[in-house]
């Protein structure tokens, strides 16, 4: 019998996954395209996107009455910083 291993993601990891997904789409995307990259349900994605907006990592814009989320400079810096921190933690064998 195969046992499925469910990996727990921290809040910071989820933030980074959303931001990375945005980066992959050229730093700008609608919520639907972010769903698979962030591996989240629609409701949870929207909840986290709102938090990212509050933190100034993402900016919301309207295009043809549709919400578009844009990666800010602060968001790009966060991805870079998180990547470094992740490498550091991994080197010591600590999972983030």
């Amino acid at each position, binding site marked *: 019998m195969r046992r499925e291993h469910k990996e727990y993601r921290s809040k910071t990891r989820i933030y980074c996954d959303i931001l990375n997904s945005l980066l992959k789409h050229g730093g700008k995307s609608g919520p639907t395209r972010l769903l698979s990259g962030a591996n989240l349900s629609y409701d949870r994605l929207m909840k986290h996107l709102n938090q990212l907006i509050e933190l100034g990592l993402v900016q919301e814009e309207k295009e043809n009455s549709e919400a578009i989320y844009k990666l800010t400079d602060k968001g790009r810096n966060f991805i870079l910083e998180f990547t470094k*921190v992740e490498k550091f933690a991994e080197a010591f064998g600590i999972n983030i």
Partner: protein
Amino acid sequence: MQKSLDIRILIFLLELVSSIISFIVGYYALKAYRTTATRGLLLLYLGFIVLGIGTLLRFTTAAYVGLIVRTIPPTTEHQLAGLIRLAASIYMITQLVAYGLFTITYILQAINTSRTSPTVAQAATIPAATAGPFVQLFFIPQLELIAITLLGFITIYTFTNWLIKKETAAALVTLGFGLMLLSHFFFLLMINSEAFLFLGQISQLAGFLCLLTMLAKVSKTNA
């Protein structure tokens, strides 16, 4: 003999470098903790800061003793020996606390992954003419053994991590802790010969330099 004492103090200078590196790694771990709020990184930060403080304390005491030993009258030598023993005890305790914190980090990590006054046998006085045993007073064999046990566990864990990840940074961390472990073996061997002091300090410094190299490598990472 004075020249020989100066060389020993110079060897202790290597500890100052090790201490600075320890503070740098600790600072980076704090920065990482602030970004991710991961408990393991907080323990790593505390461990390196405690280790840095302990190493700095031993360097400061060695430098102080090295300077004062030339001028003190023989009647006050026993007080100096007492000071060295006190500093050595504090140093070893801080080191064990640091290694203990690293060990807790890895034990917690392993759990998470599975879910999802010491005595010194040496002379109690310092003969000002030779100053031979003064260096040995800085090392407490019993506590060195505990340090070896803790570092042995840490080295095995980081080695396993490297086997899984196969990354240079992980290899540098393993090498760093491995060299620190080796340094404690050398310090333990100082029971027989003081010559092991140099080897111990060199391998300890090499261990910290590995961690510094890892930090430099990680800092250059691009997203």
